[in-house]
């Protein structure tokens, strides 16, 4: 009995510590709209940048030190500490915890587009308009700018994007008698059949655990599954007719065993990419580099093309991934912090470095239009100018796409309600209904008005 109660207590300790970290203190700062705040004056800016200042920057981007070094070279008084506190979910949890505890929060954070509204919900991001963000608006692809801004403010500076295309194994396609990439989804389905029959490979994989990819495909089809007004109202429409049509298409391919349903980004999956299991991947602009690392043995056999289209003659794409840099409202040095977010994502040398050294797919037009970037011939893709192709695709991404302010839950719920059904090769239309119900239930439970 004693042991048992100790354990019960121990359990609660865990919960307690967790609880303490999460709700120990109420969110700092109430809503103070910075509307019509005057832009920072030149003298004020110069003074801030010449005052010795320490900034903390939380990002998981490897080797970001080199871009930060450029910033520090230009502003020698500013000392930036780069910290990697984890990637994705872990990163956001720590940011949230730091914000709620009221101390230890960094000045600048990396944030993926789908998480910006989650941080706006808690009023945690600094509106960058006062710091000159509006002036550089036109230097980025339009839809990426839409991702970081709304009518209430500019919340981050785009760093990289993931416009989606079709990476495929040219050799396997040719074996199946296909000389060019399928232009429409109808052709894609036919190709899937031919590839499976002739080579035994799956034309692609629809993972059981990757809401971001599925959302990217919905994005391409013009589905608007999410919406958030920045206040209390969300719109949730993941089971629209159009969404069901898209997933119905994939369900058909899955049930005919023409598309595999493996979880992605684990060893099993990498092995599938490196062997001849998959003949292609509908993926994002960051994937060409990723593939060169994971499937090095298949070098030269790949090719890149735009996504298949739902209707012949169309040319639209979706986005999968990409990040931006935002400034937390709690920062004591907003001018320097905003300048850091702007500088590394706007300075020509820095953005070129992101694109050519870290292989981020740029959101900045200056790089997208730079022949040194687009003209690069990639051996892995048989000498194709892959960057040029994706730079073209970047212009075709549907411009208006919103997110829910609780992406963690939305994605986790996707895995529960839709991912499991993908794995079981079941009815994806019903799965979307279940996802919709789960999201609506959560939103209402959390006090949102669901439109």
């Amino acid at each position, binding site marked *: *009995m*004693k*042991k*048992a*109660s100790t*354990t*019960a*207590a*121990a*359990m*609660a*300790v*865990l*919960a*307690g*510590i*967790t*609880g*303490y970290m*999460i*709700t120990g203190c*109420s969110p700092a700062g109430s809503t103070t709209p910075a509307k019509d705040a005057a832009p920072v004056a030149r003298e004020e800016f110069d003074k801030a940048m010449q005052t010795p200042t320490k900034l903390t920057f939380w990002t998981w981007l490897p080797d970001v030190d080199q871009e930060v070094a450029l910033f520090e070279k230009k502003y020698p008084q500013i000392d930036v500490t780069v910290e990697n506190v984890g990637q994705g*979910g872990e990163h956001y*949890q720590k940011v*949230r915890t730091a914000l709620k505890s009221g101390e230890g929060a960094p000045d600048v954070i990396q944030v993926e587009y789908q998480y910006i509204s989650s941080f706006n*919900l808690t009023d945690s991001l600094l509106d960058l308009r006062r710091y000159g963000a509006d002036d550089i608006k036109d230097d980025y692809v339009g839809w990426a700018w839409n991702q970081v801004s709304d009518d209430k403010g500019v919340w981050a500076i785009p760093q990289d994007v993931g416009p989606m295309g079709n990476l495929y194994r040219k050799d396997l396609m040719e074996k199946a008698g296909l000389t060019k990439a399928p232009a429409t989804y109808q052709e894609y389905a036919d190709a899937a059949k031919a590839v499976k029959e002739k080579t035994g490979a799956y034309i692609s994989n629809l993972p*059981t*655990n990757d809401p971001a990819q599925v959302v990217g495909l919905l994005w391409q089809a013009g589905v608007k599954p999410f919406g958030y007004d920045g206040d*209390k109202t969300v719109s949730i429409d993941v089971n629209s007719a159009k969404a069901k049509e898209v997933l119905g298409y994939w369900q058909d391919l899955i049930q005919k065993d023409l598309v595999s349903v493996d*979880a992605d980004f*684990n*060893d*099993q999956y990498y*092995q*599938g990419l490196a062997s001849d*299991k998959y003949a292609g991947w509908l993926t994002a602009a960051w994937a060409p580099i990723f593939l060169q690392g994971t499937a090095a043995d298949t070098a030269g056999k790949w090719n890149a093309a735009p996504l298949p289209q739902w209707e012949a003659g169309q040319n639209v794409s979706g986005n999968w991934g990409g990040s931006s840099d935002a400034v937390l409202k709690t920062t004591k040095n907003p001018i320097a912090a905003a300048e850091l977010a702007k500088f590394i994502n706007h300075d020509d040398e820095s953005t070129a470095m992101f694109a050519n050294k870290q292989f981020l797919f740029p959101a900045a037009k200056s790089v997208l239009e730079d022949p040194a970037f687009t003209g690069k011939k990639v051996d892995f893709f048989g000498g194709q100018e892959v960057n040029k192709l994706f730079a073209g695709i970047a212009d075709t991404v549907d411009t208006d796409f919103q997110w829910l*302010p*609780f992406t*963690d*839950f939305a994605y*986790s719920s996707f*895995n*529960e309600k839709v*991912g*499991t059904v*993908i*794995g*079981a090769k079941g009815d994806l239309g019903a799965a979307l209904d279940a996802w919709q119900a789960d999201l609506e239930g*959560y939103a209402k*439970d*959390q*006090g*949102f008005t669901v439109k």
Partner: protein
Amino acid sequence: MASNTLPAAKAAGPRRRRASASRRTQTRAAYLFVLPFFLVFAAMLIVPLGYAGYLSLFKSQLIGGLSFAGLANYAEALSDPDFLGGVGRMSLFLLVQVPIMLGVALFLALALDSGRVRGGKALRLLYFMPYAVPGVVATLMWGYLYGRDFGPFAQIFQSLGMGAPDFLSPQSVLGSMMNIVTWEFVGYNMIIMYAALRGIPSELYEAAEIDGASQFRIAWNIKIPAIRPAIILTVIFSIIGTFQLFNEPSLLDSIAPDAITNGFTPNFYAYNLAFVNQDVNYAAAIAFLLGGVIAVISYVVQLQTQRAERKQRKSMP
């Protein structure tokens, strides 16, 4: 255990009545010695426990903030299919895995204790070794072994021309997890039992041998009853460990996402509630309830064994 020391102290009392001054000093010293423990115990256990209990009485919303909810979180949990499903799954785990694991551990302990195994010391170490492997590493390792394309099991089956078994499907993942846990903890439980076996006075064996008892009879009628408290201890440990499973589902989730649901084990569920759903208050309620479930089951097990012991004693002439 506390109840055992109390009568002993009382019994020692009268003898020292005369030297009451020195006794008082000793008492004071004793309290001084236990004080550091109680300070840490209070700071790290009692306070957070109270805080978690307090949290579990509130409801926090992303819009609207915190509000008092009374026992609403508990009521919700008791009809939450994810929580109940997790508890049910762990109960099944308990009924299947724990007997197997403890049975194997007992068998190994008896075998080593019989002294008929050559290289007993080395074997003892070998059996114990998996316990030295951190649970996280063990799960990652087994995750690799279970792999459907590259895992050694799959390759053996494929080279024999058979389809590779899927250890990570929604139907089989619980069994695969039982295997990991068994592998990890057999040695640990064996050591506890083995240590207890070494403590049995050898005269008992000699007497039994003179009476002509076989090794099997000795094991069944002397050894196992003698180490009963140790066995009960391992049972209680196993019950607690089972309901607290977290590493295994959390790590297998990345390789078998469609098999591991958010509520696969209650602990994993509480974690997901707190960090994914951002609902710490409900997570606290779940953790409290889980603690309650563990306490009740452990208590029932202990009560049963005590009753059985009493019955046994009565039946003895």
